[in-house]
């Protein structure tokens, strides 16, 4: 029902969570996640970990595509760089830094490396937009994966066959089970989501939105396109690097083919399905994109009785469903699931008066 979100001071208006609904929601989600970590079964934990890793990356894509309006089809490369930097740094620092402290050196370094690469990949964005930028980032993705696969770098990257990764070790606490990793991933994902929500209310975030709405107008208003477009690329690459780091800690082995174009498209698809330029968009999108293949697997097993001959249809069906989902949302609900929840919440808020 309608009741006011009254604010008595500017400080109250400027808070990250500027009304009680948001605060309640955030604390509620914290509690829910804590309960989930304690009581969910292993399968649910596995799925939730996948979601968490993807979520961090999609939040990064959201900053670039959703808030700054720059299209990228190459963010899989940033995830790759994050994952590979963590693994290579862990290998390189063995014996130099005590094991219980490595993560505190490696994680920031990996994120910083990814951000720097992000700035370089973002350079074309100063001259080209839209489609041209999409192809430029796509080209960058191909080149990065190609370099990782090169035999010349194989002593460090493992080449085509991939490389074994380390377990995360936080002050002596080795996260060697999925459940322990879930705690780390959930905390990191939660913090990065809040950080993104915080970002868009700052000067930088508002500059991003101005650039998205019309870049030349933004420039006339005194926003340096050079500075903010590259900042946006660096930030979103940093998020993807963080996701890559979690990826490396979570799986026991990483392969270059995991970070190819498919991953980049999955990130953008999750963002579109969830809703671009909204904080909760990535959350909804990632849930759908990760759940959909699992649901298809379950249905297929139910209808065919788990017979092996039909199992080969599952992967193509998942692929088709992914494409259909993307096309459906673009044609029918371009603002994503977030727009659907918005409508529902608005109707609830106005009840019993206007609906819709």
């Amino acid at each position: 029902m309608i009741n006011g979100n009254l604010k008595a001071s500017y400080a109250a208006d400027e808070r990250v969570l500027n009304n009680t609904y948001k605060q309640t929601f955030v604390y509620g989600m914290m509690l829910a996640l804590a309960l989930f970590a304690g009581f969910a079964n292993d399968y649910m934990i596995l799925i939730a970990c996948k979601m968490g890793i993807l979520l961090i990356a999609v939040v990064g894509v959201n900053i670039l595509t959703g808030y700054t309006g720059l299209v990228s089809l190459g963010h899989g490369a940033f995830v790759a760089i994050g994952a590979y930097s963590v693994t290579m740094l862990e290998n390189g620092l063995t014996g130099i830094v005590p094991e219980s402290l490595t993560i505190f050196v490696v994680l920031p370094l990996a994120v910083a490396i990814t951000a720097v690469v992000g700035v370089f990949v973002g350079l074309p964005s100063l001259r080209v937009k839209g489609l041209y930028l999409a192809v430029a980032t796509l080209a960058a993705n191909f080149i990065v994966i190609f370099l990782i696969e090169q035999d010349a770098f194989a002593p460090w990257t493992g080449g085509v066959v991939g490389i074994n990764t380390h377990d995360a070790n936080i002050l002596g606490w080795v996260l060697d089970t999925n459940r322990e990793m879930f705690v780390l991933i959930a905390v990191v994902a939660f913090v990065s989501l809040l950080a993104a929500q915080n970002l868009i209310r700052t000067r930088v975030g508002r500059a991003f939105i101005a650039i998205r709405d019309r870049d030349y107008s933004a420039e006339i208003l005194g926003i340096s396109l050079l500075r903010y477009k590259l900042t946006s690329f660096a930030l979103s690459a940093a998020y993807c690097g963080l996701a890559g780091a979690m990826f490396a800690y979570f799986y026991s082995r990483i392969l270059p083919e995991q970070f190819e174009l498919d991953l980049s498209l999955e990130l953008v698809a999750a963002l579109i399905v969830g809703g671009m330029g909204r904080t909760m968009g990535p959350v909804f999108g990632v849930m759908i994109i990760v759940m959909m293949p699992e649901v298809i697997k379950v249905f297929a097993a139910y209808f065919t009785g788990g017979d092996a001959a039909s199992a080969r249809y599952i992967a193509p069906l998942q692929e088709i469903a992914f494409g259909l989902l993307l096309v459906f949302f673009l044609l029918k609900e371009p603002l994503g699931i977030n727009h659907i929840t918005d409508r529902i919440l608005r109707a609830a808020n106005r009840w019993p008066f206007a609906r819709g």
Partner: protein
Amino acid sequence: MGQFTQFAINGLMSGAIYALIAVGIVSVYKATKVVNFAHGYLIMFGAYFYFTFSVIVPGQSWAPDWLASWQPAWLLEMREGLPMFSPMGAVLDWVQNVPRILLGIAGALVCNAIVGRIIERTLMRPLMGQSIFAMIMVTVGLISIMSGAASIIWTADADFVPHIAPNAPIRFELFGTMIFLFGADLVNMIVALLIFAGIVLMVRYTKSGVAIRATAEDQSTAYSMGISVPKVFSRAWVLASTTGAIAGAILATRNGISPSLGLFGFSVLAIVLMGGLDSYIGVFLAAMAVGVMEALTQWRMGGDWAEIVPYVAVLLILLIRPHGLFGSKEVERI
């Protein structure tokens, strides 16, 4: 020089095929302002349709024998007493395959045209006037749908497909070096160049070509001048999918049939952006240049470096000339 000429000629031959693929992307862009990321997968469909009609269908028990292998009396007579691996033998081998090659190409053209038509009607037309981003992403979604569909439909292991021309080896001397070519590659190049030239002339001189150019210039004005814009759209898509079918048939004979044919689309997309999205000439030059550069990279640095040549080239060109070599600059108004 020696090797250089040989590799440059190989490069020109693959460049011609790039140009043939690129013409589909450019035509669709000119008419509808959609850049088709899934064009590579249309080509893959073309290749699979060619495979279906030239290998699977003639192999069925209900198909007449002459379809699988045409052996009229005069052919058998000519074969008598020919030495092994002679050029004439290669031509006769090809003659024997002609019926199924023709069936394969006809089938690929028709089926791909239908696929292109369906895509245009169901996915592209509802998007008229939407943002570039939405249109790109719909074609990206199409990639998943098409590659998933292909692996459900064509389960048979990819087999040998007949070359569309006699595959006799050709040797000749150029600039003092022996050049060694395969006849089929040469014919492929000529076919690709003829189709490319035909489409450029069609767009320039025929009535439907003028309609495409008018639509490219300004959709609503074209509409009010009596041009049926939706018809132009579907024609452009059919054009793209039929040229894609031929490119697919050619690629199937060169590289074999596999789902990775779809990835060709991305390198050709890079080529198209290098040349300029709306310029046939620019795209032709870029395709030839990339073909030659790839062949030279293959010669100097090994085969796997060749695959990233288009991507490195497009990044460099975009940094220097944001709208490609010959692309027209977009005028933006605030």
